[in-house]
């Protein structure tokens, strides 16, 4: 892309589109950028290499070489660990730079895991997978700040998620919630916030913008125990929180594909509401025990966090009252606690809510001349109709007509907008 553009420069100068001076300035700009890129590639290969070697060592040692004596096996358990530690220590002392930091960090991360696993194997130490993974993560946590390694941060988030899932989603009822997950996640926050402030446009930040909310979405269910019905509410509030975080100036200024909070928040809200638009789901047991449960307590905290972000947006005049995605979680919370006794009324209200979200998304898309948003709105309405297709006792003819009319709606709205866009381009020209 870049080199193609530079190749075009002489042509542009020749045709007097840009001056010679501008051309040389463009060249200088790209050259200064270029010196950075081979280094990046090295880093990626370094990390991938370490990752594969580390995983390979775990597998080779897991073969369990029973011809070896116990002492030799024990030495082998510590060998990768010590090598990794020496390399990482050397990297810190000699300030070897990003590539070394990332590669040695990754290798050391896996070496720690393999040494604990191998000792457990040699001595037949049983134990929960979750406890093992937790020990492993905690022992590697400081490397995030000592080596300033993004690869270690990614491994940290992925393995923390794995820990929470293996603890909370087990076959047997979990005796405790994976509370450590919150601590582990909080630990990377300073690093993440620092990166957001220093380099909000970097690829790493956009990876974290997706990885962090995804990890929380996957893990939240692991905190539920008996009161599963509150899970619906918790997820709606969580997606509301993500949507509002995604609307904070630092994220909203970014491209949509780099803003995981906004995308997950929006899509998540729609999916949750679609689930709740089925009448059968609103069949909850409503006991007073619910209000003293862990799930209720967590719901309150989540709600408080979402409300805080919403109020911040409002104080900065960034809250668009026309856009219900911002505050749909509040409406849903009110509905949830009233809907416990009025199942049918709640179902109808949720259906209206989804319809409203769809229509307003279509309007936003049309106003902004954005085909993606427009069709996302149409998709929301289609999904709602598909859900009702399986749900109600409506006659086939009416359902058929509904589908045909929405299909025509798709064509018409896109066509009208295309025309408007063309005429807008014409008047501008």
């Amino acid at each position: 892309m870049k080199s193609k553009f530079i190749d075009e420069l002489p042509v542009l100068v020749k045709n007097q589109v840009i001056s010679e001076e501008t051309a040389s300035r463009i060249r200088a700009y790209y050259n200064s950028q270029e010196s950075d890129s081979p280094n990046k590639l090295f880093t990626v290969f370094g990390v991938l290499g370490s990752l594969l070697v580390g995983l390979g060592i775990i597998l080779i040692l897991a073969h369990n070489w029973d011809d070896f004596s116990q002492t030799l096996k024990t030495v082998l358990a510590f060998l990768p660990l010590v090598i990794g530690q020496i390399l990482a220590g050397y990297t810190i002392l000699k300030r070897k730079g990003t590539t070394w930091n990332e590669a040695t960090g990754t290798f050391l991360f896996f070496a720690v895991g393999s040494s604990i696993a191998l000792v457990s194997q040699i001595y037949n130490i049983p134990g929960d997978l979750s406890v093992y993974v937790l020990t492993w993560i905690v022992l590697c946590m400081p490397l995030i700040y000592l080596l300033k390694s993004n690869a270690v941060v990614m491994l940290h988030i992925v393995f923390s998620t794995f820990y929470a899932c293996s603890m909370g989603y087990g076959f047997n009822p979990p005796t405790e919630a994976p509370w450590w997950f919150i601590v582990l996640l909080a630990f990377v926050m300073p690093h993440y916030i620092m990166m957001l402030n220093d380099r909000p446009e970097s690829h790493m930040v956009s990876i974290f913008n997706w990885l962090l909310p995804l990890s929380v979405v996957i893990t939240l269910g692991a905190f539920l125990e008996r009161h599963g019905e509150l899970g619906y509410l918790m997820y709606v509030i969580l997606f509301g929180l993500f949507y509002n975080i995604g609307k904070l100036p630092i994220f909203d200024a970014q491209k949509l594909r780099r803003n995981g909070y906004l995308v997950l928040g929006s899509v998540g809200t729609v999916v949750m509401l679609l689930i709740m638009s089925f009448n059968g789901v609103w069949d909850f047991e409503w006991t007073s025990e619910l209000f003293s449960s862990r799930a209720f307590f967590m719901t309150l905290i989540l709600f408080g966090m979402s409300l805080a972000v919403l109020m911040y947006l409002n104080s900065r005049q960034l809250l668009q009252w026309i856009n219900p995605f911002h505050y749909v979680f509040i409406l849903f919370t009110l509905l949830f606690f009233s809907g416990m006794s009025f199942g049918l009324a709640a179902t109808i209200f949720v259906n209206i809510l989804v319809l409203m979200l769809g229509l307003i998304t279509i309007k936003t898309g049309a106003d902004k001349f954005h085909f993606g948003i427009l069709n996302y709105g149409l998709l929301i309405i289609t999904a709602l109709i598909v859900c009702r297709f399986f749900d109600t006792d409506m006659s086939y003819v009416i359902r058929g007509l509904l589908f045909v009319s929405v299909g025509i709606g798709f064509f018409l709205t896109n066509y009208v907008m295309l025309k408007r866009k063309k005429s807008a381009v014409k008047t501008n020209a």
Partner: protein
Amino acid sequence: MLKTMKTIPVFLIFVAVVLAQLFVPAKMIFDQEKVISKGTAYKFKTAPVDPSDPFKGKYIYLNYELNSAASTDSTWVYGAPIYLSLATDSLGFAKLHRISKDTPNHQNYVKAKVNWYSAHEKTVTFSLPFDEFYMNETKAYDAEIAHVKAQRDSVANNTYALVYVLNGRGVLENVFINNIPIAEYVEKE
């Protein structure tokens, strides 16, 4: 100058992390060795089956014959600790002396976890903690087959685990079929 001033504290913290990373596996080894050297050896009758662990490799899961005890106490709940005081029967295998909810005042006991309480049969069912025996990946499944075969050939259960017991901890030393270590037995078959 400023750079080296920052490097040294970072490196010192790193050294502390290194020591912690070495300490955890070393402590695991030390704890196990202590039980083996000071504990009492018991033979637990068992039956192996073959699962695997993504990080630690293949192991045989040991189903112990000793997995329940009569109890009139109906307050046992899932996951609660249960302390099993051990004794040896006339054939030299481990047997239950008594169970309790508190730590016994001698050292020959194992801390296990309660699975459930059956009010109908008035028994509490539990899992012994030392139920994973790691084997070479080619032998783990064969071990399960060998146990089933040996079972057919003789009358009584002749597969047992040799476990060292000290103050609640049990260290699984080896598993035997007809008094031969299971890895050797599998090789012979």
